[in-house]
């Protein structure tokens, strides 16, 4: 169902020429971490593997597929369709452009053809994706039953007009929606959706990898509620999920749906040879570890491909970077004014009409290069391009492969180039190519039984249908949860023998629960430049650090300064300004261990495992000041003090305890030893983020520097905690990856070319002392190699 492109030998030659020019003849295989090109790999071409239509597929669906030129399926499609037709839950993980929509559209339409009362629900992580799928599904449905009262396919989301909703509830065979709408707009109104729940045959969850962390933990609970309502109506839907390549797709699907899944991961679609290059911009200031701008480098690399007529996509990490790169490339390659645009930008803020136009012109080939944020990473159809240039590491292995998959033809060559920024993660990846190419992609982690999340959804579930006295829900004893809710008057257990829990509150609980965060409390950002417009919001936990007085707040590349933070009213009043710096809050964080789950009896450097622990902690943090950091150079150009209320939370943490013996073996002054610990924690945070496949703000760090060796003899500790109340399950896995964490942290610091520390390894010199890097390395060496005997000797 994807446009088949002709093979053009001229393309292949042009591509080869550019690659040779860029690499200077460097062949695949040998990595050169210190070079400009750190790695060049070639992923071989793969031939197609086909399979006939599965037996259960309705004849009319086969006819429609044949009419579109599809006489047989790719092997993975056939397998997935067969599982779905036989009502087995299935998770499909194959790369971009392997025809995965057919894997769910075919069984769904087949089921509706055979039984017109059958219904299906599709969930996409964004509204835009649902819109995108609507067109394709509509076309298929139309071909299948051209009559007006044929197969109804509708999107149902926050944009659906009120007066259209009733008609959709009555007429839709397939409802395309998102988890947020299901949570707050469909499940609480299930009586009005009785037709859907009576006959719900399939639930399709696309882009399953998007549901990790908090969002995934919430989704599990939304699906628990969905399946609870289906049981009430007597239906039992089959789940068809698709995911980008992650390490544990089946585990994630089973964690989200809480049922066994079949995994389909062998891609049967053909693809041509693909070259993958890692580019590290050259160092321009060795002492401070400053490299040439990665945006300038990206411009150069993209230009090489464009000059030879190759079509490409550039992924940038932010909206600002997207706009900057678009401007650069337009300057270099756009024809005379008024000519057809060959270079386009693409990001979330653009109007849908404009986005459709860009997508079409990409497919047609008149747009030669598009610069995009992650907006084009998900399954929007733009055809297959020649080259993908990644300006900055996308943050995870999975996202990198998915973006790189935007370039690649069924036959013929393609290329992907990663241009590293000076961010620590980028530098780690680009200097350790094996980490990316050979390691498995990240694990997606969720913790649906986080009490904060669980309690919110138990409320929603109780609103939807009364709980019975024996009904299970989640891992904890839901009767106990209900008992506590009853103490607060939210539910009441009826006095009958088989008592049920009735919702006894005026509130509509789903309204107070946002799936994209744990706490629904937030700060809104009000722009007072012209009147008072709300331009953004921030979670309660990150509010003080990003919206304190005089903080610089960025939206779409525009700079705003916070004039006043109304902490009680949860509002920050900002005004647009023009300046060349941003702010970084200084937060004092104190972690107190409440309960240790797994820990050594006594930390012993001889056995690295004994220095790690994880458990429950109490985190109190206070923003005490901020620094002004100059754009591009990251110079510290000023600071300020702040007095904000302390925030507290109960969460989970992993921590490293540095044995006293190790500290004693360090031939440095107390201050330098402390700097070493701080620098070590800075580097560990970067690596932990990498290992956990999480965003920067998902984890927090705190250092307990220990006290003077002479007086108290307390071991220093480095805490890496879940930055969400209750924790969302990062700590135990991090504990399990402890050895890897230490080894990679050592690799990061050792591999960094700077002299005394830089933002890439232990933090900029201004932050930590001059010996931070040296001491941190010594600590890691001692942790890794020293034995207890040597220490005591």
């Amino acid at each position, binding site marked *: 169902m994807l446009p088949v492109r002709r093979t053009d030998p001229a393309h292949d030659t042009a591509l080869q020429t550019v690659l040779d020019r860029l690499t200077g003849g460097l062949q695949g295989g040998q990595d050169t971490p210190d070079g400009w090109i750190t790695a060049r790999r070639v992923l071989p071409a793969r031939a197609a593997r086909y399979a006939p239509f599965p037996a259960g597929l309705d004849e009319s669906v086969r006819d429609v597929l044949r009419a579109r030129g599809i006489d047989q399926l790719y092997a993975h499609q056939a397998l997935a369709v067969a599982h779905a037709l036989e009502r087995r839950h299935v998770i499909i993980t194959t790369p971009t452009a392997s025809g995965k929509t057919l894997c769910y559209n075919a069984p769904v339409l087949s089921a509706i053809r055979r039984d017109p009362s059958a219904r299906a629900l599709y969930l996409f992580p964004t509204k835009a994706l649902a819109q995108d799928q609507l067109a394709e599904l509509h076309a298929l449905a139309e071909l299948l039953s051209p009559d007006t009262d044929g197969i109804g396919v509708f999107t149902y989301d926050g944009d659906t007009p009120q007066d259209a909703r009733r008609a959709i509830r009555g007429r839709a065979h397939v409802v395309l929606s998102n988890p947020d709408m299901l949570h707050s707009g469909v499940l609480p109104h299930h009586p009005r959706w009785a037709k859907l729940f009576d006959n719900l045959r399939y639930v399709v969850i696309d882009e399953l990898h998007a549901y990790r962390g908090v969002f995934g933990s919430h989704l599990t609970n939304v699906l628990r509620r969905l399946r609870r309502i289906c049981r009430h109506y007597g239906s039992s839907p089959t789940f068809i999920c698709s995911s980008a390549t992650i390490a544990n797709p089946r585990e994630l699907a089973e964690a989200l749906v809480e049922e066994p899944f079949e995994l389909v991961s062998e891609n049967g679609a053909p693809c041509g040879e693909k070259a993958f290059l890692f580019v590290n911009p050259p160092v321009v200031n060795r002492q401070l570890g400053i490299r040439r701008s990665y945006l300038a480098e990206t411009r150069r690399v993209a230009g090489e491909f464009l000059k030879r007529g190759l079509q490409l996509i550039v992924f940038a990490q932010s909206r600002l970077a997207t706009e900057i790169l678009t401007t650069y490339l337009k300057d270099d390659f756009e024809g005379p004014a008024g000519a057809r645009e060959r270079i386009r930008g693409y990001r979330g803020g653009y109007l849908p009409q404009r986005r459709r136009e860009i997508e079409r012109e990409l497919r047609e080939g008149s747009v030669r290069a598009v610069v995009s944020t992650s907006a084009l990473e998900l399954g929007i159809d733009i055809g297959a391009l020649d080259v993908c240039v990644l300006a900055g590491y996308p943050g995870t292995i999975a996202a990198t492969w998915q973006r790189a998959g935007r370039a690649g033809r069924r036959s013929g060559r393609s290329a992907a180039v990663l241009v590293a920024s000076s961010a620590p993660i980028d530098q780690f990846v680009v200097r350790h190519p094996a980490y990316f190419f050979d390691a498995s992609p990240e694990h997606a982690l969720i913790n649906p039984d986080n009490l904060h999340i669980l309690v919110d959804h138990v409320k929603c579930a109780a609103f939807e249908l009364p709980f019975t006295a024996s009904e299970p829900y989640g891992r904890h004893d839901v009767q106990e949860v209900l008992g506590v809710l009853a103490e*607060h008057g939210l539910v009441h257990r009826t006095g009958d023998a088989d008592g049920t829990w009735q919702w006894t509150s005026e509130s509509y609980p789903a309204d107070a629960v946002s799936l994209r965060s744990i706490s629904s409390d937030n700060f809104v950002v009000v722009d007072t430049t012209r009147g008072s417009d709300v331009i953004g919001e921030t979670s309660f936990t990150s509010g003080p650090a990003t919206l304190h007085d005089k903080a610089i707040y960025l939206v779409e590349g525009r700079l705003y300064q916070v004039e006043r933070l109304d902490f009680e009213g949860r509002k920050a009043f900002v005004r647009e300004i023009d300046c060349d710096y941003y702010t970084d809050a200084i937060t004092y964080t104190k972690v107190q261990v409440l309960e240790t789950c797994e820990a050594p009896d006594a930390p012993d450097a001889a056995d690295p495992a004994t220095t790690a622990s994880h458990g*429950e902690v109490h985190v109190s943090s206070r923003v005490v000041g901020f620094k002004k950091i100059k754009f591009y150079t990251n110079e510290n150009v000023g600071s300020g003090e702040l007095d904000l209320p302390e925030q507290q939370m109960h969460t989970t943490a992993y921590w490293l305890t540095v044995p006293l013996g190790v500290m004693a073996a360090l031939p440095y002054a107390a201050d330098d030893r402390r700097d070493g610990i701080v620098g070590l924690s800075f580097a560990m945070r970067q690596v932990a983020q990498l290992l956990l496949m999480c965003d920067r703000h998902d984890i927090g760090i705190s250092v307990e520097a220990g006290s003077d060796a002479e007086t108290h003899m307390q071991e220093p500790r480095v805490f890496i905690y879940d930055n969400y109340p209750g924790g969302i399950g990062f700590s135990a896995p991090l504990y399990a990856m402890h050895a890897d964490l230490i080894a990679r942290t050592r690799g990061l610091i050792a591999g960094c070319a700077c002299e005394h520390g830089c933002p890439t390894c232990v933090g900029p010199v201004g932050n930590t002392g001059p010996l931070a890097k040296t001491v941190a390395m010594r600590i890691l060496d001692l942790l890794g190699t020293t034995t207890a005997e040597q220490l005591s000797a």
Partner: protein
Amino acid sequence: MSTLAERLRGVVRSGGSASPGPPCVPVRRPGAAEAEEGPDPAGGLAALLDGEWRESSGQRYLVIDRTYPPGHRHGRIAVADAAPGGEGGWPVLSVVAAGVGPGRMLFFDLETTGLAGGAGTCAFLVGCGWFDGPAFRIRQFLLARYGAERGLLDEVAALARGAGAVATYNGKTFDLPLIETRFLFHRMDTPFAGMPHVDMLHVARRLWSGGLEPTGADTATSCRLAEIEQSVLGHVRAGDVPGCEIPSRYFQYVRSGDGRPLAAVLEHNRLDLLSLALLTARTAGLLDGGAEAAGSAREALGLGRLYRRDGRAREAEASFARAAAMTSEADAQTAAAAWHAYATSLRHARRYEEAAAAWSRVMGLRACPPRLAQEASEALAVHHEHRDINLRRARDLARQALELTGSPGRAHAVRRRLARLERRLAAADLF
């Protein structure tokens, strides 16, 4: 380490926003003093609320019947004077709701566990009223146990099916969708599907909103039933339960079994039904009597609007004429609105000279709202430009209109008219 329950308590306490907001009176906690009702609080409930138990598949709900005799007065009105006679309905109400016939009108009002809607919002009290000859009867269904809802709804449906139409106060957006959800929840057909429905909130807005007394000052535009019943029917409630307190009173009963807090809720519901019935009767009386029946300028104006909405131009014009005649300078807003409506309906009837006279009245009012004055001067400018050809007068009026214009689009149109008039005047001066 804390137990699960302790941690849960911490989570629920900190959860904040999803827990109920502060009720407008403190809710007494279960197990509080008055829970020691008697050995059989359920039996006590029937006696307390003067109702009768019904049972359906082992679950009981309470039915409370009341009859208001013909002589019962609700404010200034006696029940008998409001009664429609015949089958218990008013065919004339088809002016405000399509399909209303002579069949019995069912007055319908719910008390619910919340305003949010959705599967977790219940109607714990279903109030139904109807005229039975010269008397008014009310039957209330109280959900004493959640499990009894299906049986309760069965009986409500049976009662509703005997009606020809239903009247509510804000039922279009609240009561009917909510009860429909309850029927759907139990997979039952709703008896109200396709039934003609008079939503008196919308009628009251047209007829009576803004208060009826021409105080001259800014009048509150509230359309709450309690306020309308006071101003139209002259009924003043004493000791009524505030609406926001109603759900918490029910929850209090559910937890403690003590029905005393419910007595006032039942009375509140009965008064709502009675007022709803008498306001509906008043509306029918106005529609029957036409313009002459209106008791005030505002009422006549509102009546005209009801007629106009139903496409009855002649009756509308008569009502507007009466409204205009009844206005006084003291209530400038009503006067302006009445003359404006009258002028508009005359223009629609192509009675241009009379319309022009009415527009002049609008302009002549002291304290005429600028928007209406603008429209009037523009309408008169048109009149003097095209019909009663007086270009200078037309130009002066257009200038006046321009001064009063607020919207850019309108101003543009007036400017073009003004320019044209200036040209024509200049041309006329040449000859």
